[in-house]
């Protein structure tokens, strides 16, 4: 048998680095899985699967606690085997999971679907379990040096959080998956060689595994199997359809599809009076959904006539030679629409540089390079950030349809934060308008109305906050069966504007929802509904009974704000019983899935997490004789509060900085990297403090007081600070964001190792258990933070974090224990 010859008290550098590699691989895997499932399935189920799988961390803590005596004497083979097993199962389990016939869309119809979901949970649980065994073993073995271990752990995770985003730009997603295997295999080898494991040749096994994974990723075995119900899969089933080009980045997997036999003809809600069909188009899919059309254009204006027969063309009939800003330009359809209508200048903002590259370079001949046409300026960046930083003014600001109809309607985006449709966002856009300029936003029509009325409510509030007394005088909304377009004018709509608007609608068969001179009889003339829901809603939202109307509406149409940026969250509990009753009569689509699934995820995570934490308690023999109920309770409270607090702060800061950094990726990467790195350094720094030989509780007081003060002060001044500096260049903003996080991160890295070292000195049997509690709490905390943000906003998440950190002063485990 392998015997461990090292001194248990000293952590060799090689072991520390191996631990870092495992942590890096584990975090890479976690982020990558979210991406992989977003590509092959839909994002809300991905969230669910990964949250539950992460409970593998808790299970590992439990197992190490229960088997501590056995594992302690076999630390070397156990760590090496766990690292190797993590690598092997990371890839294999994902490939198996994607081969299962799970279909989220059949979830409520098919009894098998919950079982397939369970199977996916179990599969993904395995790799996280092994990764966690590695980390937990290291903490248990070197508990007296918890600070160093924690530093290696967090710095590894920090590198992983940055590395995965860079890797996703350069490599295909399944190749990144193989890299996870390779990283943990390298960790196993490094560990084995550092610690002098015998036989040395055993190190060849993980190496062979790494090579096999990298090779498999390039073969059909390693391909992603996209659900046959995603738009891309369906488009490719049509005769003669084929993929012309693919691109991949953390912003999405792009596919350009040509469909010769059955052309795409994408023109959402095209008027029945349109004289022409759309020209040749290529389909651009993002993550297998999110269709947008790339039009063939040779400069001949006549081929674009159809763009004048969409509801989004309305603002061009109220202006002449406008200077236009297109937010979310995508494949360029809105730009062509502006040019068709004689725009004097067009600023187009698109987030994804790969989309631009496809349109402007790879398919330049087809597209006619819309972003290079005279008068058009392209800005690669995030739309909201551009609107905030730019000083330019416009006659028309267009916010087009950025998401797919189906996904939006099924509530798949319910949990996606969106800063494009908040009250503050609309205020920003309005400020960028010339006098008499128009903000135009187009959304999908669903029944009963959700999107459109929420947008209308948001516009009303945004105008009111901007000091407009009578928002109804500046607003108009039109619709057809498929799309609705809202316009908000910087000034009151004149009788001449209204006359033009009415003529635009009359000639195209579009219906009026609201304009300042509207009579009820003018609603629903062309496309009739059981009741004129849209017009009635608009009237109610403009009147004194707005709050009452929003309250009585069965969907959540209260305006989204930056603090609660969930425009797509329409679900309300009070409608659930009625909707479930109607499910067999086709009432299912009225149920927005995202939120109920989030709650289901929370319940699962809490139940399973509690089971994993409580199980070792049942076998109290392993927890040491001194560890009474009081100590155990303190241990749970302390480490759960730290796990939850850490993730709460991280999530709140991603939200707070997303607008500042003007890019979702920058925000996630910078915040994760900075917090993990600085917390790792903070852990090291706390050793210096320890030498001052203050009582342990005093050493805790310092970082906790700092965290509380910093969080509260950020809560107060961060929004204004961010606003003031938003126009700085990206590099400067990233540096500032890092500086803001620095003191907080350093402080947040201290309480965990302090607690762990205190425990190890007095009650070593509780160490792996405490680690598992911390990990479980972080998983459940991520879900709780989302729920809290939906209901009370991200500021509340940060306040909750403050409370959690403050509570650790009461539950610090060392104060209640006597030294052994």
């Amino acid at each position: 048998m392998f015997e461990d010859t090292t001194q248990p008290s000293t952590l060799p550098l090689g072991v520390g680095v191996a631990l870092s590699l495992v942590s890096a691989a584990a975090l890479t895997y976690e982020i990558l899985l979210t991406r992989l499932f977003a590509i092959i399935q839909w994002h809300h189920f991905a969230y669910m699967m990964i949250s539950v799988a992460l409970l593998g961390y808790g299970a590992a803590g439990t197992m190490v606690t229960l088997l501590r005596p056995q594992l302690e004497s076999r630390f070397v083979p156990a760590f090496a085997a766990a690292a190797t097993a993590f690598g092997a199962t990371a890839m294999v389990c994902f490939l198996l999971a994607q081969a299962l016939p799970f279909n989220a869309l059949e979830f409520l119809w098919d009894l098998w679907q919950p079982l397939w979901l369970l199977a996916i949970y179990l599969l993904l649980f395995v790799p996280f379990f092994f990764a966690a065994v590695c980390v937990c073993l290291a903490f248990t073995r070197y508990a007296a040096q918890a600070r160093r271990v924690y530093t290696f752990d967090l710095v590894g995770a920090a590198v992983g959080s940055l590395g995965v985003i860079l890797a996703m730009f350069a490599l295909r997603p399944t190749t990144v998956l193989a890299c996870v295997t390779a990283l943990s295999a390298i960790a196993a080898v490094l560990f084995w060689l550092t610690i002098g494991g015998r036989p040395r040749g055993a190190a060849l096994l993980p190496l062979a595994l790494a090579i096999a994974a990298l090779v498999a990723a390039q073969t059909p075995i390693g391909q992603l199997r996209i659900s046959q119900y995603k738009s891309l899969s369906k488009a490719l089933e049509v005769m003669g359809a084929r993929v012309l080009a693919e691109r991949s980045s953390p912003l999405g997997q792009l596919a350009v599809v040509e469909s010769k036999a059955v052309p795409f003809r994408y023109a959402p809600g095209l008027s029945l009076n349109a004289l022409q069909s759309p020209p040749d188009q290529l389909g651009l899919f993002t993550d297998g959904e999110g269709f947008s059309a790339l039009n063939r254009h040779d400069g001949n204006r006549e081929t674009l006539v159809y763009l004048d027969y969409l509801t989004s063309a309305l603002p061009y009939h109220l202006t002449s030679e406008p200077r236009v800003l297109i937010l979310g330009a995508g494949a360029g359809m809105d730009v062509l629409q502006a040019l068709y209508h004689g725009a004097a200048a067009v600023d187009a903002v698109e987030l994804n540089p790969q989309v631009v590259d496809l349109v402007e370079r790879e398919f330049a001949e087809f597209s006619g390079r819309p972003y290079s046409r005279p008068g058009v300026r392209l800005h690669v960046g995030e739309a909201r950030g551009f609107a905030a930083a730019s000083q330019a003014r416009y006659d028309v600001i267009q916010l087009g349809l950025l998401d797919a109809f189906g996904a939006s309607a099924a509530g798949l985006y319910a949990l996606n934060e969106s800063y494009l449709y908040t009250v503050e966002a609309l205020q920003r856009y309005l400020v960028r308008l010339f006098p008499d300029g128009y903000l135009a936003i187009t959304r999908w029509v669903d029944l009963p109305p959700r999107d459109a009325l929420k947008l209308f409510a948001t516009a009303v509030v945004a105008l009111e906050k901007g000091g407009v007394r009578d928002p109804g005088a500046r607003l108009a909304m039109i619709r057809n069966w498929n799309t609705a377009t809202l316009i908000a004018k910087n000034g009151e709509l004149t009788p001449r504007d209204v006359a033009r608007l009415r003529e635009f609608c009359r000639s195209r068969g579009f219906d009026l929802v609201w304009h300042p001179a509207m009579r009820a009889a003018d609603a629903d003339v062309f496309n009739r509904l059981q009741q004129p829901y849209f017009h009635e809603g608009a009237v109610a939202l403009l009147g004194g009974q707005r709050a009452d109307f929003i309250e009585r509406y069965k969907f959540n149409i209260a305006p989204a704000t930056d603090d609660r940026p969930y425009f797509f969250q329409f679900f309300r509990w009070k409608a659930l019983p009625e909707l479930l009753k109607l499910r067999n009569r086709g009432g299912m689509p009225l149920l927005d899935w995202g939120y109920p699934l989030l709650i289901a995820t929370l319940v699962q995570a809490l139940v399973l997490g509690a089971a994993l934490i409580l199980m070792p308690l049942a076998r109290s023999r392993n927890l040491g004789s001194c560890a009474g109920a009081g100590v155990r309770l303190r241990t749970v409270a302390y480490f759960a509060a730290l796990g939850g607090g850490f993730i709460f702060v991280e999530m709140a800061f991603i939200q707070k900085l997303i607008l500042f950094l003007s890019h979702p990726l920058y925000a996630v990467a910078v915040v994760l990297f900075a917090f993990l790195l600085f917390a790792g350094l903070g852990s090291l720094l706390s050793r210096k403090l320890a030498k001052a030989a203050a009582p342990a509780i005093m050493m805790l007081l310092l970082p906790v007081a700092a965290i509380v003060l910093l969080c509260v002060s950020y809560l107060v001044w961060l929004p204004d600070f961010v606003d003031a500096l938003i126009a700085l260049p990206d590099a400067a903003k990233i540096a500032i964001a890092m500086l803001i996080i620095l003191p907080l991160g350093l402080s947040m890295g201290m309480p965990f190792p302090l607690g762990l070292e205190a425990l190890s000195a007095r009650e070593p049997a509780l160490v792996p258990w405490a680690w598992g509690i911390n990990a479980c709490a972080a998983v459940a905390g991520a879900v709780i933070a989302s729920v809290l943000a939906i209901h009370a906003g991200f500021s509340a998440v940060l306040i909750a974090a403050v409370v959690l950190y403050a509570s650790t002063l009461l539950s610090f485990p060392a104060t209640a224990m006597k030294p052994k």
Partner: protein
Amino acid sequence: MWRTRLPIFRFLLLRIARGGLFAVLFFASIAGGEDNYAAARRAMVREIEGMASSTPLETGSRTLDRQVLQVMGKVQRHLFVPAAQQRHAYENRPLPIGHGQTISQPYIVALMTDLLRPEAGHVVLEIGTGSGYQAAVLAELTREVYTMEIIEPLGIQAKKRLVQLGYRNVEVEVADGYYGWPSQAPFDGIMVTAAASHIPVPLVQQLKPGGRMVIPVGTSFLTQQLMLIEKSPDGSVTSRQMLPVRFVPLTGRH
């Protein structure tokens, strides 16, 4: 919160119970010697009928046409779904038929068919053949059905299936449905079950004055709303959208 979650559990229990009921009906019908699914089919029709009586169709409150219900009780839905799905064929749910396509839930099929107001002398066009089930239902109610499919294997399979089942008044073509079927136009009714970002203008042109076009709007497995396009005798076109369910978005004030 607990009170509101209860219906979920009740729903699950009901579903399990109903699965059992179908098994019983299935074996009972084997014993009876009719086609194996006749009893299940009758149960399905009763279920649809029960639901329809509480749903206002269009703006009035008429119930489903008797003839439509009769045909739903006659067409063997289980022969239009993959073998693995046959045991679910008479449950009121959508089913996968391969190639990312689905067959709508029977209740929605009944509603759509009813909305089209088919008559014995009618010639109808269907865009999106799928398995051919809707075409078979229409074939029982009208003189001729022309149906088009853009997924080749589905179209070929449906054609074979409809021939085997003896539907002589159905023509299946694997082709782009956007331009309709000009050689057989105009049509008394058009059913567009294929997803489209807009209503193809050529199809509206191929609709007879007084004719009706029905378009379900939604995603795979879920029909969100039904759209009815009517061409009046003078040629003017109006559209109507309706939910398949009775659902008022405001609480109170009914």
